[in-house]
């Protein structure tokens, strides 16, 4: 709002009519009102919103009333000794102590002293040492030194290892020696009241395992973020494979069953060929695929014509028991009338199209054009065979894929040589205790190959990701 607008509203006349003394103060008053408009927004918009608001500091109004009821507490400068320190030490220290009406003026002991716990480690005498505790690697002197340190530093092995000045020994060495000594002592000493077995168990120390574990921990700590990501992805894959493993195993089993069933079916048919010529008047088992069956068939036709041209089949004759699968098929028709072509079993929903396509390739339509009994029987067999073939095809392709993948894997490992492969295998294994987990899982049946895939895949990936890794592998 300019001053002119204000004047308009207030119905003041133009300022030029006023005396000049008003000019300067009004001008000065005007200037601070004119804010410089920021560049980003149009003038009108700025005049509407008015720019950023002014910042206001508000002091907190609340002031707590000070608690001035009590009088000043009296404190006393007292001296004390720390019982936690050794007896020979007579260091006196001082500290301020609050004088309350209930406090004892004499110090009842430095109250932090009770926290100075001391571990009672086992002590052996020379006799016991000679009898049970000799070791080719450790002299008695060294063992005594070790035990003294253990006592001094309360079995804090990091400290002990640091202060150890006898020989060059690793921490695992020291621990190993200490715990084996303790274990031996416990074993040979007369049994005490408490559970000896538990004590012995507590004192068992597996040096190799500990060393390995620490190495793993270091490697785990030093993993790069890429390695961590890779490992997580692989774990996920592994879990998925585990879940689907059962499914795959079942499918494979079914296929094998199918295949073996097909083989079984074949010899059965051959048997019925023998029974064929001997039963000319009966419906011959249509189970064989040699043209020699045409003879018995013709017999059927002629005999049929002789029996008033009615094709009557009496079921369950003893000769036909051979052709069990075929008569069974006949008997499957329920009582009543049935149209033969409608009785052809259709393949599974998923397979229908594929089977039809295969039939097309052989020049056959979706249904037999002359559905007589023989034709229908053979048709059904053909359909079944096609289905099994398609299943086997699928399984073979799957197995093929698996094989190819594993071969590639193997090649890559071989390329990088067994040495670096084992090194990277360790670094891969050191990806946490996951390798232990996978190793233990591989105990059961089919999980073995999957678990072996996981670490080796890890190796393969780590080996080829960065040049640094490749260099490392090459070393």
């Amino acid at each position, binding site marked *: 709002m300019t001053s002119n607008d204000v004047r308009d509203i207030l119905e003041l006349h133009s300022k030029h009519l006023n005396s000049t003394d008003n000019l300067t103060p009004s001008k000065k008053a005007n200037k601070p009102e004119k804010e410089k408009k920021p560049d980003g927004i149009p003038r009108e918009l700025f005049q509407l919103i008015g720019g950023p608001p002014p910042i206001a500091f508000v002091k907190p109004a609340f002031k707590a009333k000070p608690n001035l009821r009590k009088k000043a507490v009296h404190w006393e400068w007292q001296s004390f000794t720390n019982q936690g320190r050794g007896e020979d030490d007579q260091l006196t220290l001082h500290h301020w102590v609050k004088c309350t009406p209930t406090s004892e003026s004499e110090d009842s002991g430095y109250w932090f002293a009770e926290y100075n716990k001391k571990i009672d480690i086992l002590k052996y005498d020379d006799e016991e040492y000679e009898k049970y505790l000799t070791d080719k690697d450790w002299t008695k002197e060294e063992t005594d030194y070790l035990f003294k340190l253990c006592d001094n530093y309360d079995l804090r092995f990091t400290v002990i290892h640091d202060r150890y000045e006898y020989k060059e020994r690793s921490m695992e060495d020291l621990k190993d020696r200490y715990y084996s000594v303790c274990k031996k002592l416990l074993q040979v000493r007369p049994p005490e009241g408490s559970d000896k077995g538990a004590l012995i168990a507590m004192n068992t120390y597996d040096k190799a395992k500990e060393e390995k574990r620490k190495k793993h921990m270091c490697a785990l700590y030093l993993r790069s973020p890429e390695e961590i990501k890779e490992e997580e992805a692989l774990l996920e894959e592994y879990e998925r494979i585990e879940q689907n493993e059962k499914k795959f195993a079942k499918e494979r089993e079914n296929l094998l069953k199918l*295949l073996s069933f097909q083989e079984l079916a074949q010899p059965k048919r051959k048997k019925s060929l023998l029974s064929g010529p001997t039963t000319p008047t009966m419906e011959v088992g249509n189970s064989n*695929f040699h043209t020699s069956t045409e003879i018995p068939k013709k017999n059927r*036709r002629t005999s*049929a014509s002789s029996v008033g*041209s*009615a*094709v*009557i*089949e*009496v*079921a*369950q004759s003893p000769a036909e028991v051979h052709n069990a699968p075929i008569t069974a098929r006949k008997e499957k*028709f*329920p*009582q*009543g*009338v*049935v*149209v*033969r*072509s409608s*009785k052809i079993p259709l393949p599974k929903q998923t397979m229908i199209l594929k089977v039809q396509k*295969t039939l097309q390739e*052989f*020049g*056959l339509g979706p249904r*037999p*054009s*002359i*559905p*007589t*009994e*023989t*034709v229908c029987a*053979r048709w059904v*067999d*053909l359909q079944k*065979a*096609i289905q*099994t*073939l398609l299943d*086997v095809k699928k*399984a*073979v392709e799957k*197995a*093929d894929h*698996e*094989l190819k993948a*594993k*071969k590639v*894997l*193997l090649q890559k*490992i071989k390329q990088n040589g067994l040495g670096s492969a084992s090194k990277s*295998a360790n670094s891969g294994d050191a990806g946490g205790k996951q390798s232990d987990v996978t190793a233990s899982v591989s105990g059961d049946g089919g999980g*073995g*190959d999957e678990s*072996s*895939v996981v*670490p*080796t895949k890890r190796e393969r990936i780590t080996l080829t990701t960065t040049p640094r890794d490749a260099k490392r592998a090459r070393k």
Partner: protein
Amino acid sequence: MSTKRTKGVTIVYPIVYGNTASLLPQKKVPDSDHTHKWTVTVKGINGQDLGHFIKKVTFKLHETYSNPQRVVEHPPFEITETGWGEFELSIKLQFIEGSEKPVTLYHNLRLHSYEDDGSISTSSKNKPVQSFQYDELVFTDPPETLYQVLTTQPIPTLPSKPSNSPYSLQAEQDELRKIDEAYRKVQEQMTLYKNRNDKITKELEEVKAELDRIKK
């Protein structure tokens, strides 16, 4: 039911069903859009009547026809109509023995002649179009009446050579041969794939063993 069934007996009666269709000469009734005249029949393979064991046949035509359910109670079991479109119709056969359930056959009415690949042949052939299907009615444990009828009257057998109908023993043999051929090929493929499978499983085991060794 009181009708006894002849146990352990199966009687097979072959039939042929389908339609013929011929193009209508355009002059006659120009206002109707019917282009073809067709006849649907159900007969024995040599043109025999089925009246001795079939009581009536119900042809269910497309709903656009008036009275789509056409019942024929005496032979010949056929329907003649005119139309312009092809559709699937159902043929329900009911037997003289009421206790036997009726059977239904389905047939796709064919008006146009088709090339081998399924496209409509454009060349005008004046020969009537035929579309028939062979099938067999299998009577399992037929009741008395049917048994009597079917055993007294001769059941047609497939002629050995194709004459006026395409269905013959020879045709059956041809079909069987084709099927056997197909079966043989399938078996061949099967053995091939089985061998492949065996080879692959063997290789797979070897590779797995190697991987295990390296892992250790």
